[in-house]
């Protein structure tokens, strides 16, 4: 089953909060190799996390 961007966006968010299953991880990896938009989204989630951590420094 291939992931849609909608499903990928949810898994990418959850990957910041829990360990994904091996299956989820593999499908996500495959999706990301093919999808620029989701790669950018993933990067933005990481940038957001860093920025919030820095917010009150």
């Amino acid at each position, binding site marked *: 089953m291939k992931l849609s961007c909608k499903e990928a966006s949810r898994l990418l968010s959850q990957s910041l909060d*829990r360990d994904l299953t091996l299956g989820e991880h593999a499908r996500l990896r495959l999706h990301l190799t093919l999808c620029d938009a989701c790669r*950018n989204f993933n990067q933005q989630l990481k940038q*957001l996390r860093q920025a919030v951590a820095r917010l009150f420094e």
Partner: protein
Amino acid sequence: MASDFRSQVEAQRPYLLRYASMELRNSDAAEDAVQEALLAALGAEASFAGRSNLRTWLTGILKHKIVDSIRRSSRERPLETTDGESTVDDFDALFDETGHWCEPPQAWPDQALQEKQFLQALEKCLAALPARTGQVFMMREHLGFETDDICKELGITATHCWVLLYRARMSLRDCLQKGWLGR
């Protein structure tokens, strides 16, 4: 000397209040937490001696008071599960019927994230989140709670927690894209 310390501590009050308000999303609770932190700090001057940064030290004390406050309020007012913040359907509009992005995310330049305007926009976007969503997000990303601990403190399921975090991130991303990058 003692009154000097007091006035230096007092001078940090506005900053601490801004910090607590962002975490607790409730101005009364934020005032209380800051008051408790300042009192604790004034009574602990000796333990500050030799530390270089007063603000960092005070923020450390405040964090404990914030966690206490979250614990108390979740005991007093258990979370309603029908708070209207528990679905992800409202982001369906961002995707077409095949699940692709309607407006594919573009890369954010790392350089721009260092700018003051970005952090200002981020604060605004955080303040605009629904209360519970914002609180869970700040517990996770700013106070550094694990999801399990957030569930325990707030009495919500892990699934609900992930949904709220997804909502927060999607909203913030969208808000920053529009508010900061202006498109």
